């Protein structure tokens, strides 16, 4: 019984592996998944102009997000972007602490600058 079980497992795995385009096909599916994840992740960029330094946040998610940066908190609706001023003192510590809140999840990023 155990031999039959293992044989069916191996044959099914091999057939599914070949149907899905072997290594290349599976690797492509995996990369597509990574792309899906990156599309659903908010983008942060540091923008510098004559009036100061800002953190630009683009909400690519389908739900609103909250971004907090040293006392400034901004709520960003889906498919919208916002800029948050970065205090110059941040550059003395060489790190920016960004808190991102999505639904019931909050992540504190510590970006080195």
């Amino acid at each position, binding site marked *: 019984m155990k031999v039959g079980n293992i044989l069916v497992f191996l044959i099914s795995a091999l057939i599914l592996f070949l149907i899905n385009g072997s290594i290349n096909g599976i690797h492509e599916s995996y990369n597509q*998944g990574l792309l*899906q994840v990156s599309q659903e992740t908010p983008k942060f960029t540091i923008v510098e102009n004559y009036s100061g330094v800002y953190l630009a946040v683009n909400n690519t998610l389908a739900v609103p997000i909250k971004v907090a940066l040293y006392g400034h908190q901004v709520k960003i609706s889906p498919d919208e972007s916002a800029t948050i001023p970065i205090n110059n003192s941040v550059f003395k510590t060489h790190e920016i602490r960004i808190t991102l809140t999505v639904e019931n999840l909050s992540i504190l990023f*510590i970006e080195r600058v």
Partner: protein
Amino acid sequence: MISGALFRLISSFSYFIVAVSPLPWWYTSIGGVINVYDSPFFVNVYYMEQNLSCTLVYPINLLLISLRLAEVFTSIVYSFSSVEGIVKGKIPDTPLFTFYVSLFYLLDLILFSVIDYFMIGKLIAPVGAFKENVSLSRIPFLNLNGDISAEITNYPLPMFYVTLASGLFSLVTAIVSNDERKITRR
């Protein structure tokens, strides 16, 4: 003898039902952002509104689908041998897959608690809804700085209870079958 044969038939049939059922066994949500519906035969992962089961986690699902096919095959063989046992008066083996796999899920909870205790320093009941704060620097392979705070929801779905019931029934059947074998040998 008849009761033992009937037990084995029900046990094999319930094993078949568990193996062919597409329903998930367990639900886990990390802050409502990552939602996982899993069973030993398929994992459905949602990141926000994106379904990653056929993309990012497909390599795992490929193996799990193969496992399902193997278990469906084995359950059919067990069902036939239990019917043959009734007709010919034999005592075939009892499938214990549902018992071991439901036990594995329960052991998984204990493992989660132990890992959690070493990472956070406090013991959390891993079933239901609970708040989790993890310092990313404590996870060395991630190589990230910062903290994650999330409300985690983790609970078994009705199909898990069906499997657990089937597993316990299989265990009782295995004990009854062993007793029958001892009596037959005498």
